[in-house]
C-alpha cells in the first residue's frame, strides 16, 4: 500500500491556483497566503473578519491509498478576541477571496459568521468522503477558514499577531 505524500495547500486567484500553505497562511484582507494587509481591530463592541482562506488537503505524490476523516482544529486556544472559523466547501465551488465574500461584520464580540463553525482545540470533521490518492491535487473538500477579531482583542496592531497553529488530521488506508 504505497502511502501518498500530502500537503496543506491554499487556493488563490480567479481560476484557482493551489500553493503550499505550509509556507505560511496569513489571515489578511487579500487573496493571498502571504500578504500582510491588516484586519482593523474594532473600536467598539463587534467582530470583523478576514477574507476567506481556501485550504485543502492535497496529494503531491500519488499513492495507492484512500483518504477520509479530514478534520481541523487549533493546537492551542487563541488570544482573547481572536477566533478561527471554518466551513466545508467543495473544490468545484471554489470562490476567489474578495471583499464580497468576506463574512459580514457583527455588532457582537466573539461572533461566528453564518454557515461557519468555530474552530476549537478538538478536531472537528469537515469532510469524511473517501477519496483515492491515485491523483495529485486536492483530495476531498476545502476547509474555508476565516479569522474573527473582536473589540476585546488586546493585542496591538501589526502584521504578525499570533494565531494558533492549525492542525489538520486525516485517515489514510
Amino acid at each position, binding site marked *: 500500500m504505497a502511502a501518498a505524500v500530502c500537503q496543506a495547500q491554499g487556493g488563490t486567484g480567479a481560476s484557482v491556483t493551489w500553493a503550499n500553505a505550509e*509556507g505560511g497562511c496569513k489571515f489578511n484582507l487579500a487573496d493571498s497566503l502571504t500578504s500582510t494587509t491588516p484586519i482593523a481591530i474594532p473600536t467598539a463592541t463587534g467582530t470583523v473578519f478576514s477574507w476567506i482562506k481556501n485550504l485543502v488537503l492535497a496529494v503531491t505524490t500519488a*499513492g495507492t491509498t484512500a483518504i477520509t476523516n479530514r478534520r481541523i482544529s487549533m493546537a492551542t486556544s487563541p488570544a482573547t478576541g481572536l477566533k478561527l472559523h471554518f466551513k466545508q466547501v467543495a473544490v468545484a465551488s471554489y470562490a476567489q477571496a474578495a471583499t464580497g465574500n468576506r463574512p459580514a461584520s457583527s455588532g457582537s464580540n466573539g461572533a461566528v459568521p453564518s454557515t461557519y463553525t468555530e474552530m476549537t482545540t478538538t478536531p472537528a470533521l469537515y469532510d469524511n468522503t473517501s477519496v483515492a490518492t491515485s491523483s495529485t491535487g486536492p483530495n476531498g473538500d476545502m476547509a474555508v477558514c476565516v479569522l474573527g477579531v473582536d473589540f476585546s482583542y488586546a493585542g496591538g496592531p501589526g502584521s504578525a499577531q499570533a494565531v494558533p497553529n492549525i492542525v489538520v488530521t486525516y485517515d489514510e488506508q
Partner: protein
Amino acid sequence: MITIAKDAYTWCAKYHDGTQIPEYDESRPNGRGFAEVSASQVATLELSSAHKVAVPHGATPVFFRRRRMELNPSNDNVVSSTTTHCIGWKKGENACYLFVSEDGSTLLTNDAQAV
C-alpha cells in the same frame, strides 16, 4: 510514478486458516491496500509483529494511519507531522481500536476518534 513512503509500522492480516497477508512482501513490493484483505477471514491483525489485535468472528477488521500535520499560519514551516497507526475491529455497536504512536506508546479504546 508512485513513490513508496514507508511508515514506522506495516500491517499483516492473519487468516483463520493460517494464511498471512502482509502489507509488503516480495510479490508486492509496492504494498497492498488493506481493502484487498478478505475481512471475513481475518483472525488477527498485527503491526510489524509488535502489536496484535484478535478480531472476533463476524467483526470487520480495521486498519488506518491517522496523519496529523500542524501548520503555523505566521511562519514558514510545518511545526510537526506525525502518524498514528490503528488496528482493530468493529461489530455493530461494539468496536476495539489499538492506536500505536510513532514512539511505540499505545491506546486501546472503543472510540475511533480518540487520537
